[in-house]
């Protein structure tokens, strides 16, 4: 009840010396050293009421008022909160000009660059243009216009994309599931793309989209050694001799039956169809059909999620046409078979299965153990669960309320141990 000790302790600890030093001072004062205690300055009249005691405590403090501030560390943090430089640098930019990190195909190394953004907060139109360079020496330029934008409530969106990529050292191990790791080689893929598309998304359950555009690809010697043509016979590798320009058209439809909780549960399906037609030649015309199922199943409660992904892609050349090797989908790497290198397996068809058990460590962090299996093949008769390449591992996923933002995966396969640090959702 209004302890007499209150006055002695009333001054802010923050403005007093650090506790051990304070202790020494207090003992010294109590023993008569140093500055005398206030009570020793003059013998005060004994207070006659509680109100008087309280008043004296305050009067005593009034003689010793000190500035009330925050520490330098806190000041620095406060400044950064008021002026969030990182967000300004990477999101809004200066007059629209901003820095860029990431945004290249998996396996590109660290990617950095610069870009321009117009219409950050517009729900009607947004334009971005970026130039990127990676530590592997890859270069990309792109320009994208979206209308209306993601901020719009309209269910329909359109986009136009112009893109240039110079990926100077993509890995090539040969075609098929029996390709050898020892025959790793590199090739350069320089492509130009001009495309446009429409997406209709009336709610979060259903989405349908269509795209069309022009794609031009040049294949050359890789900037790293050995270059692919020194390891593989170019004439036996489809698409090396001739690299036509393609009209690319296609579409996809998706059903999302996941709920909208922080850790969504449910199942989603996506089907895609793409058609590649040579502009001047039909030697490499082909059609690709792909499908993917993702399921997230809570095991009792949502702190335990069993996640499963099943994906398959089939590219079929017309009549005598061949699917160019550089347009074949690959498996291997951070987004597919995590125990293998990026682009490790390549062929016209593939099958991929990812299974993962995730458990909540913190609201924004999951740990997980996973197993991946997959294969590539050329003949549709080989579709099935035999001869799969497999890997397993452990990982951590950092979430925000809008999704997974960063993943760390340590995976093992018969080709060794791989560490992947990647952004965005896998599944």
């Amino acid at each position, binding site marked *: 009840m209004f302890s007499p000790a209150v006055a002695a302790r009333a001054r802010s600890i923050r403005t007093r010396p650090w506790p051990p030093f304070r202790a020494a001072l207090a003992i010294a004062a109590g023993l008569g050293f140093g500055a005398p205690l206030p009570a020793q300055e003059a013998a005060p009249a004994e*207070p006659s009421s509680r109100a008087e005691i*309280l008043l004296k405590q305050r009067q005593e403090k*009034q003689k010793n*008022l000190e500035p009330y501030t925050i520490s330098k560390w806190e000041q620095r943090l406060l400044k950064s909160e008021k002026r969030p430089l990182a967000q300004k640098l990477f999101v809004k930019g200066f007059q629209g000009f901003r820095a860029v990190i990431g945004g290249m195909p998996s396996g590109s190394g660290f990617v950095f660059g610069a870009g321009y953004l117009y219409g950050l907060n517009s729900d009607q139109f947004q334009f971005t243009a970026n130039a990127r360079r990676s530590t592997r020496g890859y270069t990309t330029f792109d320009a994208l216009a979206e209308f209306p934008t993601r901020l719009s409530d309209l269910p329909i969106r359109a986009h136009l994309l112009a893109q240039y990529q110079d990926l100077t050292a993509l890995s090539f191990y040969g075609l098929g599931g029996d390709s050898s790791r020892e025959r790793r080689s590199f090739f350069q893929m320089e492509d130009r793309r001009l495309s446009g598309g429409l997406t209709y998304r009336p709610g979060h359950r259903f989405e349908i989209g269509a795209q069309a555009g022009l794609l031009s690809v040049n294949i050359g010697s890789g900037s790293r050694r050995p270059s692919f043509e020194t390891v593989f016979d170019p004439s036996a590798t489809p698409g090396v001799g001739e690299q036509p320009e393609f009209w690319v058209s296609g579409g996809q439809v998706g059903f999302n039956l996941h709920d909208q909780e922080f850790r969504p549960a449910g199942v989603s399906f996506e089907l895609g169809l793409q058609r590649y037609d040579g502009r001047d030649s039909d030697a490499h015309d082909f059609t690709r059909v792909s499908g993917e199922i993702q399921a997230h199943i809570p095991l009792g409660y949502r702190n335990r999620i069993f996640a499963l992904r099943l994906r398959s892609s089939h590219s079929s050349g017309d009549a005598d046409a061949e699917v160019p090797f550089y347009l074949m989908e690959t498996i291997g790497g951070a987004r597919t078979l995590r125990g293998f290198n990026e682009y490790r397996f390549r062929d016209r068809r593939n099958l991929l299965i990812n299974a993962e058990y995730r458990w909540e460590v*913190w609201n924004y962090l999951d740990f997980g153990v996973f197993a991946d299996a997959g294969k590539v093949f050329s003949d549709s008769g080989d579709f099935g669960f035999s001869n799969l390449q497999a890997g397993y591992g452990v990982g951590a996923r950092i979430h925000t309320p809008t999704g997974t933002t960063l993943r760390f995966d340590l995976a093992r396969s018969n080709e060794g141990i791989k560490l992947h640090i990647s952004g965005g959702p896998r599944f």
Partner: protein
Amino acid sequence: MRGLWKLSTLLLLGISAAALGAPKFYPDDPVWEDNDRLDTPEQPAELELSDIYDRFSHIFYDFGSRQYGEAENVNTLDEVPDSSWYTNRHAKRRMSLEELVRGPDSPGGAPDREGVWTVFRSKTQGLTPGFQIEDRKGDRYVIKFNAPENPEINSSSEVIATKLFYALGYNVPENYLAFIDPSKLEIKPGTKIKDLYGDEELLTQDQLRWLIRKAQREPDGTIRVTASKYIDGVPLGPHRYFETRSDDPNDVIPHENRRELRGLRVFSSWVNHDDTRAQNSQDAWVEEDGKHYVRHYLLDLGSCFGSGSIGFQLPWLSYHYWMDLELIKKNAKSFGLHTPTYHKVEWPHYPEYKTAGRFEAESYRPHEWRNDYRNPAFVRMTDRDAFWAAKIMMALEPDELRALVRTGLISDPEEEQYFYAVLLERQRKTAEFYFNRVNPLDQFRVGGAGLEFTHLSEKYGFPSGAPTYRIGWSLFDNRDGTYRELTEPQQQKERVVAIPARPRGSGPELFLVAEIHTLEPDHPAWNQRIGVTLRPGSGGYEIVGIERGP
């Protein structure tokens, strides 16, 4: 070194006590007003805290005094006197239903709906814009919008919680549920808008329209908002829940040791105010009768009940700190076998009820409830602090709670009924829990038959068994602090006990003390001592002291 610090503190305490040689009770005890309005002519500094620093530092460091003990700002009745922090309201002097519903609102304080609202400040271009406006009367308000998907949740929460916290005794702003006519929003020339990236630019009418484009319209085209009136005085920024302001002479009790801040934990758990932290408080340098002092407010009550700051409350908030290191360690090691409590909650009507949101009573455990992050006052709350808060909370009766819930204008009657029922049930659970941790006798008074008291658990219909009371009397000499037994302890069932006569010739400094234990086998904590001190006076006895615990 910590031992050395303790030793030094003990030395100081000893010196103080010995030097003072003070009586236990002063003539003006019990003090019901702590006059902490000593003139402060010089304006204290305006304080701005870093949200990140505040958030992280409380996770890794326990701010405040190292000695955990009882609150320091209670009077001899173990109650909190009125001060610049707290005013005894409904629990001490019953407020009428009209007063409760009015809360802190001043006559004519609501924003003027008829005239133009002039925007003179805007803080963000994010999803939830924040405006500051001036109405035709010249009054200024902070305007907060509801989440588009939940057009009532934040404003209902803010208004209901404001009335509740006011009735409980806290200083809160006048928060009005208002309806904006977008056509009456004008921009004061030169008004700038600050975006999420810290940049400012002139606010235009187009931007204004864009900012409120997603706000749900009422049938008459208006937008429902919370209008929080500027509080009186010069704003000084938040108060921290530890230590004192070094530039405020009136602030002599470490905040972590203030009972009304410790007890705030009980109220906050009841109404699920998880955002109880420094950033949601405000000090103001106010003037009264020509004198200045600092008054302390609670702000931003929009994150109570099932409401988060934007839309629904996140499911885990109120079940654990936003970063609970112990829980993280446990979860990491468990391989998922340990399930945090919040996953097990079945929100009865979520998300169908768009205003009640994540508000329920079934899984609510008052002592397990957590605010956003460690609050130094909350973690120091003792059973006595909690008992004080619980009995104040119970002063709000069901019909009063219903009236307060109605101030939130929840449009769906079924949802409003659910909201009220959950609030009532959480109130019951909270009080029952804390009444069971101490001897829950209270409302001591001297009547014609002697010393009367109330058993709060019995009063409110909580399981109480058939308690008996062991009561003994002593004499207390207020001059030297000595006790002398007067009567042998006796057991009785009645909640009134005759007051024995003092020995002939006893002076006015010889007080009577009744020591009361409540005996009930199912409630061992009730067997705590309560010492009730009676001071003799010309008109009979006056209760001057209540001591709880050993």
